[in-house]
């Protein structure tokens, strides 16, 4: 049994002018200690999926099973204990910390809510602050607004890790940080993973960061997973035209290296009115009639990953 099993997750939002289905039937599993990355362009639904797993807010339909126990559709009160095993860090670390509270209180918040007494909580908080590279006596009594983005992310990680979670959902954790600080935070996450056997759902649009930290990767487009598999398999031999195009757009150091495959055509279609059949067909160089009529299912490929494309076998290497 996998640690986390997400099946057919659907989440809709009402906006001015209609409804957007940000997640349209997303399914994946997560094993203990493994890092699964959700990648895709802005607006593909990866953040929504990540937050739905944590029930903030929960999905409209679908199943989320943690160690076999169903979380979706149940009132938060009942699932409090299980949900402690799932924690999250956010893209804007600064704004994810209450600017008026002190660091020690912030990190201890989850423990106090869970009923721990202040003394025990304080010990754990200080230990965790050291773990993330912050000196408790120097940062503990200061307010969150006094710290830089990278330090705020460390505090956020401490706050999440002090709850001893089994799964950490990271929603674009390094996207707003300087490149040098990005590396530090990524390394910190790696350390946490090693020390605590942490499983991670790593949401990002940055393919190079994803490659360094993930074991598996799921590529999303307009609310659906189009390709999912081991990170090496997907990166070296993508089996979906969208993945192919994404990988091509990652800048390489060698300007003379030829680009493989045609560029993406057109704009991202309106999420309120997604194309029928395969949602990628309006920008796909390989689109045929069948792509408009039949929704492609995820099928196993020779290298091991699964791809949702009628012509997955013909995707250029």
């Amino acid at each position, binding site marked *: 049994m996998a640690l986390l099993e997400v099946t057919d997750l659907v989440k809709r939002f009402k906006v001015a002018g*209609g409804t*957007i289905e*940000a997640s349209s039937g997303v399914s994946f599993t997560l094993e203990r200690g493994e890092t699964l990355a959700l990648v895709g362009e802005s*607006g593909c639904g990866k953040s929504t999926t990540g937050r739905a797993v944590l029930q903030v807010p929960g999905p409209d339909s679908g199943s989320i099973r943690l160690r076999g126990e169903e979380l979706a559709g149940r009132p938060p009160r009942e699932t409090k204990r299980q949900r402690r095993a799932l924690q999250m860090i956010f893209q804007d670390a600064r704004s994810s910390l209450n600017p008026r509270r002190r660091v020690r209180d912030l990190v201890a918040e989850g423990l106090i809510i869970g009923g721990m007494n202040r003394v025990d909580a304080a010990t754990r908080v200080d230990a965790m602050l050291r773990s993330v590279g912050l000196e408790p006596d120097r940062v503990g009594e200061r307010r969150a607004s006094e710290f830089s983005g990278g330090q705020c992310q460390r505090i956020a990680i401490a706050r999440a890790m002090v709850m001893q979670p089994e799964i950490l959902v990271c929603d674009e954790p390094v996207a707003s940080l300087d490149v040098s600080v990005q590396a530090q935070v990524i390394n910190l996450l790696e350390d946490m993973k090693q020390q605590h056997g942490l499983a991670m759902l790593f949401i990002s649009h940055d393919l190079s960061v994803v490659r360094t930290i993930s074991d598996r990767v799921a590529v999303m487009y307009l609310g659906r997973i189009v390709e999912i598999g081991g990170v090496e398999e997907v990166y070296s031999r993508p089996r979906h035209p969208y993945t192919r195009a994404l990988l091509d757009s990652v800048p390489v150091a060698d300007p003379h290296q030829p680009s493989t495959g045609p560029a993406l055509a057109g704009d*991202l279609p*309106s*999420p*309120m009115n997604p194309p029928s059949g395969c949602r990628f067909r309006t920008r796909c160089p390989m689109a045929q009639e069948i792509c408009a009529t039949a929704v492609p299912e995820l099928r196993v490929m020779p290298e091991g990953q699964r791809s949702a494309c009628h012509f997955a076998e013909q995707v250029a290497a």
Partner: protein
Amino acid sequence: MTVLQRERARVSNIRPRSHTLHRLRSIGGRALHLVAVLVLVTLAGTALTDLMPGSPASIILGPTASDEAIAALNAEYGYDQPLLLRYLQWLGNAITGDLGVSIQSNQPVVEVLLQRLPVTLELTVLALLLSLAIAIPAAVYAASRENSMFDRIVSGLASGFMSVPVFVIGVLLVYVLGVATRWFPVAGWAPLSSGLAENLHFVFVPVLALALGEFPAFYRLLRSDVISTLREDFVQTATVRGMPRGYILRRHVLRPSSFSLITVAAVAFGRLLAGSVVVESLFALPGLGSLALQSIPAKDIPMIQGIVVLVAVTYVLINAVVDATYALLDPRMRRI
């Protein structure tokens, strides 16, 4: 949520049909809101009599009245009926233009209101215009010469006037303009029918008192608005390109500021209506305010209710009109 914001930013082909539907729905929502407020306002007016200890008739007739007299008066005016019934009756009457009969004078309330309304209206409108006439040029000039002697003096005066209640301004003006110098009459009213000059002679000091009380709010708002607009890039560009200052001020700076001015003017109108009570009392002007005042010792409940409802409904409608104009005028709200 950032996901949502990004989704909306990426939308490239919104179906026109669903957008119009959304607009209609939002207009409908606002209309419903307006109706709800109007209902509650008029209901509160009717409910005023429920706030007192004892029945309205006992208040009107005083402690010496007999129980039968009280019961008879209550029945005559319908005060013995439950709130909802009274309200519906009142509503039915109001639609046909009947707001009851004044206890002091036995005249229909609507008649008296219509008699007194022009005075208060003239007072309020003139005061609004005068305070704008003072505030706008002063604010624009002060803002364009920030921290100059003019700016500091006028801004200081504005702060000062903001802290002086209208009745104090009125009393002081009476002293300076009426008693010490005898330039203006200190009390009384000459309707427009007896000549414009005569009318303005009587109305000048009260209007000035009200205007001096209101102008600081306009002045400060406009001044800070103009200062921040002048700092914006597009103004610097225009200046550098050689456009004359006056032209820039008129065409590029005043227009965005006019939005906030309109909103503030609507609020000021409400304040002016209230302020006119004080001024009308002080200068013995026959307006709605002094009518309200004299209805209090007379315990003229129908009259008071009529005044309150009239003013409140006017205020609601003015605000609704301002909201609608705002929404229509703001070019950002207009879509193709």
